[in-house]
């Protein structure tokens, strides 16, 4: 076989391996979170500490009033927290929550933007969307709309929302650059994105990277701060700034993972960025 053909073939094979791996990761993530969605209220094995969802949320920085205002079933205690994003919302704004889960942040956002605003929640897990919708129905929310979709292929029109929020989800997406390009696409010019997520301060061991549990627990899919910021920048975002950093709770990760070492390598960040006007 000529060399160029062999090189081409090997590149095709590598690409296929990547695609298979991405699909496998997606399935693991969806199965993991669909299990979580079926539990009454939980924290088991996801990106959060031990304790009740309310306790976790308090620690993250949500106020008591916020927690009381959203349906309690919508708070699964899974996020690394995005209270600043909620605090920045103004009445009448259109908001997209990437990875909306059972809807906690969406309900807080819905209250903040009021009836003249609107909140769209996208999540790829059937059970999560069902649960979110049920919570919206119970809470009588009329300005929140949940739909099942993938963050790398958002079912949302171009230049549509004022704000994109996301709470501890993009780390689960195999193609982060593409997810940020989608966030950029759906934002109106001048719109802003405020995400919180798990990032690495240094590389984690290969054994952790390969663990599905660690992926679902927001670890194996996490990238370094530099890579994360670079993915945001390459999507076209400007005014990128790190609003805050907090420790990543490692309590509920599988026992096989060395936690002392990990807590030095991982943290949760809150980042804001803007689509140029």
């Amino acid at each position, binding site marked *: 076989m000529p060399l160029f053909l062999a090189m081409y073939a090997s590149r095709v094979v590598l690409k296929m391996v990547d695609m298979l791996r991405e699909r496998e990761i997606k399935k693991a993530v969806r199965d993991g979170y669909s299990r979580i969605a079926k539990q009454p209220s939980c924290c088991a094995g996801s990106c959060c500490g031990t304790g009740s969802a309310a306790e976790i949320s308090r620690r993250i920085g949500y106020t008591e009033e916020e927690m009381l205002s959203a349906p309690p079933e919508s708070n699964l205690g899974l996020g690394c927290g995005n209270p600043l994003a909620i605090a920045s919302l103004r009445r009448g704004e259109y908001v997209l929550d990437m990875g909306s889960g059972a809807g906690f942040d969406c309900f807080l956002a819905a209250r903040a933007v009021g009836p003249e605003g609107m909140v769209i929640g996208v999540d790829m897990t059937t059970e999560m969307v069902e649960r979110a919708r049920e919570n919206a129905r119970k809470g009588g929310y009329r300005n929140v709309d949940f739909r099942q979709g993938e963050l790398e292929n958002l079912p949302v029109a*171009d230049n549509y929302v004022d704000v994109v929020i996301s709470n501890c989800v993009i780390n689960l997406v195999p193609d982060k650059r593409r997810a940020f390009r989608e966030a950029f696409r759906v934002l109106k010019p001048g719109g802003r994105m405020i995400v919180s997520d798990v990032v690495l301060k240094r590389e984690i061991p290969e054994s952790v990277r390969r663990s599905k549990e660690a992926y679902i627990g927001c670890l194996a899919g996490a990238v370094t701060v530099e890579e994360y910021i670079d993915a945001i920048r390459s999507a076209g975002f400007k005014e990128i700034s790190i609003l805050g950093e907090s420790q990543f709770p490692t309590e509920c990760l599988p026992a096989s993972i060395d936690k002392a070492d990990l807590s030095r390598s991982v943290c949760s960040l809150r980042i804001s960025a803007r689509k140029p006007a």
Partner: protein
Amino acid sequence: MEILVCPVCRGDLELEVFEENEREILTGRLTCRSCGEVYPIEEGIPNMLPPELRERR
């Protein structure tokens, strides 16, 4: 409706309603006007996952 687009090609979608109540559409389907892909609406939830990721239920 105008906010939903086809996740594959970003085309406009055409809505068909099979079942609805006074508040929302319960069952139906969305068809992309550009690429023809069909997205089901079941129990009020539009399933906008690209076809290869959709769960068979």
